[in-house]
Structures are given as structure tokens and as C-alpha cells.
């Protein structure tokens, strides 16, 4: 596989199809570098969610090669994948909060999965809930939260363990413009700390709010590269 040694993610001629349908992603090749901020854009049905599923390891490609964190993921045994997943934060489009857990416990989940002791969980989770403006709703179950509040809990859960890659599927879709900007600032803060951020969105206004971001555009399963981000290493430490 071609590509730089210091890349964090590399796709090489990746194709994905579900069952016997036509490919939803075709010949996808790109390289993501540590500390970069990417927007993945495209119309509905362009394949953004499928691409993100490959990035957060919910799906294996039907062809091609993927390297992540310096490892060939195609040849990784199944039991090795959880360790990779713990290095990736994911904001799902439908939030996927656990309904019987409080906002606090939902946010704490990645830390508990990683084996962090309860005493080390309390403060960072409280701080994170405070940052997304939900500390007063820490004991609330998802069903009692508004759509925007649920989305903020989902984002807090995705970033709490300080992942090396953050993958977010339409993370600002259900929040007001002020909160959308606030959440983007959180992603930028994470990005400054070294996290590679990939945000899928169809909101072009959002792209302008992160001026140094790089753009990947999907159209009917094919990838275009309007900022040249995918062919050349971008600047570091944006």
C-alpha cells in the first residue's frame, strides 16, 4: 500500500457493498494525518454514513485495504478490533444513547469500557457534562432529554476518553446555531490536543466555521478532494 508512514488512516481502493447490491462506496483512496480536521460532505445517500462505518470499524470493506494507527485492519483478527475502537470516538447520527442509563452514566461508558476506576471517572465526566451545559441534567434518562440535549450527551460520550480519531455523523443536526458553534469549538479543542477529527455534514455553513478544515466530498459513492487534503499532507497542529 502506498502512503506516508506517519498517517493515522489510509484507505486504498476501498469498495463497499451491502449484500448483492451495487457498491455504495467505490475506489475510495485517501490518507488522514494526525491532528487534522476534516469535513466529509455530500448529499443524502452519497455514502457518508457508510464511509464513517468503515472509519469507526462497524464494517469491513468488501475490497481494498485500510490501515489505521499503522496497522493493516483487513488482516487484524476480530478480537484485536476492540483495542482499535477504544482509540476512536464516535458520534452516531441517531445518538444511540443507552436508554436506561442516566446522562452521566452514558458519558462515563467509554471510560468504564476502558477499565478506568470509578474514582477517576467522576470529575472528568462532571466537567464534560458541565462543558456541554448539561451538568444539571446528569441524572436524567435520555428519554427525558430534548433532541439537542441527547446530541450533546452523545458528543460528550464520544470525546470523554480523548480519542485519537473523532468520527461524528451530523453532530450538529439537532442543536441550535449557538450550540452548534460551541460543539465545533469542542471538536477544535480536541483537534488542537492532537485528535484527528472527521465530521460528516451536509451543512455547508458549518464548513466555514472551521477555516482550517479540509474537505472530503462524496458523490454517489465516489470521493472528490476539493481542498487537496487527501493527496497531500495537510498542515499539522492547526
Amino acid at each position, binding site marked *: 500500500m502506498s502512503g506516508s508512514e506517519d498517517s493515522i488512516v489510509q484507505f486504498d481502493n476501498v469498495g463497499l457493498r451491502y449484500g448483492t447490491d451495487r457498491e455504495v462506496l467505490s475506489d475510495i483512496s485517501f490518507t488522514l494525518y494526525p491532528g487534522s480536521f476534516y469535513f466529509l460532505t455530500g448529499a443524502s445517500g452519497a455514502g457518508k454514513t457508510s464511509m464513517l462505518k468503515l472509519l469507526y*470499524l462497524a464494517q469491513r470493506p468488501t475490497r481494498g485495504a485500510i490501515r489505521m494507527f499503522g496497522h493493516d485492519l483487513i488482516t487484524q483478527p*476480530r478480537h484485536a478490533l476492540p*483495542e482499535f475502537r477504544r482509540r476512536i470516538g*464516535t458520534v452516531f447520527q441517531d445518538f444511540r444513547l*443507552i436508554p436506561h442509563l442516566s446522562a452521566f452514566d452514558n458519558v462515563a461508558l467509554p*471510560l468504564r469500557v476502558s*477499565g478506568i476506576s470509578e474514582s477517576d471517572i467522576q470529575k472528568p465526566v462532571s466537567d464534560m457534562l458541565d462543558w456541554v451545559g448539561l451538568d444539571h441534567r446528569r441524572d436524567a434518562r435520555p428519554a427525558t432529554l430534548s433532541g439537542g440535549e441527547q446530541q450533546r450527551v452523545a458528543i460528550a460520550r464520544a470525546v470523554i*476518553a*480523548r480519542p485519537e480519531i473523532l468520527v461524528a455523523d451530523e453532530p450538529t443536526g439537532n442543536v441550535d446555531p449557538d450550540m452548534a458553534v460551541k460543539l465545533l469549538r469542542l471538536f477544535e479543542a480536541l483537534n488542537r490536543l492532537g485528535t484527528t477529527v472527521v465530521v460528516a455534514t451536509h451543512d455547508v455553513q458549518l464548513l466555514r466555521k472551521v477555516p482550517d478544515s479540509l474537505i472530503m466530498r462524496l458523490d454517489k459513492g465516489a470521493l472528490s478532494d476539493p481542498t487537496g487534503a487527501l493527496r497531500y499532507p495537510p498542515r499539522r497542529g492547526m
Partner: protein
Amino acid sequence: MALDPLVRRTAPRFGSESARMLPQTRIAGPMPWVMAIMIALTVMAAGAGLALNNVATNARDEISGGITVQVVEGAPASRERQARAAVSLLRARDDVASVRRVPDEELADLLEPWLGEAANDADAVPTPALIDVRLSGPVTAPRLRELRAQLLAQVPAARLDAQAGWLAPVFEALRSLQYLAIGLVLLLAATSVAAVWLAARSALGTNRDTIEVIHHLGGTDGQIARIFQRSIGIDAALGGLAGLMLGIGAIFVLGQQFAALGSGLVAGGTLDWRDWLAIAAVPVAGIVLAVLTARFTVIAALRRML
């Protein structure tokens, strides 16, 4: 907000918080009740099997080496003379551990239920003299043959029977009942496994979204399986305890009723401390079985996910 590097990358495990990953529906759910019924039935079957084993063992010990000598002679004087001769001959042998002439009164009492008052009248119904003999060591066919030959030479009216011989059908029946009890225990264990398998699959289906989220957050199959193990283990423990109480209660009541029969054979079926220990192990085995079944079911289902 400070984002400290919190996450350890190796050896993840859930702490006690894992119990909260699944909604807790125990008591209201069917699992503890199913387990309670299964464990109660298994405890009763195991108790019955152990009691039958004790009955058989005690009876076998009691009649091992036992011989009954009857002096079948109509004339009372001759019967008495031959009985005395038989007792003397038997006591003279080195391989005879004990000899007891069954007193006529005891014989009459034994026969009274069948013969009525006539059993006390030796003239009305002549009864044989009975001698209860215990050999040192088991009764074998050659020993019996040799003893019979010696006895008949001096006591022509003597009839010899090994006690184990006429109780053999009883032992066969007891053995069959023991096999039945073992079969019941195995069937109940298989049914418990099936019940836990169904419960685990149902819980997997109900909590699929939760499992997928934990899976995507980097939860391992072992971590997810442990959530179910813990949940089903607690259900099984609650059910097992209730089942044990129910089963022991049933054994106790049945024991009282059988004890009231006053039969020597039944009295031999009393459970000792080792039996109670085995019965107490039934719910423990049930919990282990439930936890292992849950683990294998959940892991098999998770393997179908990436």
C-alpha cells in the same frame, strides 16, 4: 475543560458498574422463577435418588452374609430337636459370625397379620423353626452348597436361603429408581440450560442496541458476556436459593411421612450430612451452569458481529 489522558489501552474490564449496563428486570422477569422451579425439582429428584441409594446400601449391608435356616418339620418335638442341632452345628463353624434362633413368639407376631390368632396355636398351624445366621464374608454359591450339605446330614428338615437372593428383585427395583432419579436430574439440568439459553437470547434481542453501542465503544466480547453473566447469575442465585428452600421443604415433609410408616427398609433411607451437602450443591451447580450457558450463548451471538 482539561482533557487528561484517562484511558488505559490494555486489560479493560467492567467493575461493579457493569450490572447497570442492562435494565434490571429480575423478580418481575421469568428467569428467577424458572430457576426456582428447576432447582426445586432437581433437589427433590437428587434427594430421592440419594435416599434410595441409602436404602439399598443399608439393606445390602444388613443382609450381606445373611442366611435364613428353616426347619420344616410338622412334629413339634422333632422340629425342636432338629432346630437345636442346627444351632449347635452352625455355632461350631469358624465362618459363622452369629446365629440367632428366632423365638416362637416373635415368629407368631410376624405371622399374625396373615394367620390371625391361629399363628399363636402351634397345633393349628405348624410353623417352621427359623434361625437367622450371619456368615463372616459374603454368601457365595459354593459356601451355601457346602453348608447345606453339612446341615442336611444332621438336620434333614433344614432349608437354607441366602437373604440376598430373595431381596434381589427389591434391589433391582431400587436400582431402577436410582437410574430414574439420575435421569430426572440430567433432564432438569438440560431444561435449565435450555431456559437460560432462551433467556440469554431474549435478553440479547431486547438489549441489541445497548450491546452494539458497547461494542462500538471498544467493549470486548468478554466484557459484554460478563454483563449478561452477572445479570443471569444473580437471577439464578435468587431462583436457586428459593428452589433449594422449596426442595428441602418437600424432602422434609416426605421424610416425615415415610418415617411414619415405621418400616426398617425405609428408615435406612435417612439422608446423612454428605447427602445434604450434595443437595446444597445443586443450586451452586445450577448457578454455574446458568452463568456458563449465558456466556457461551452471548459470545456465540457476538461472534456474528464484526
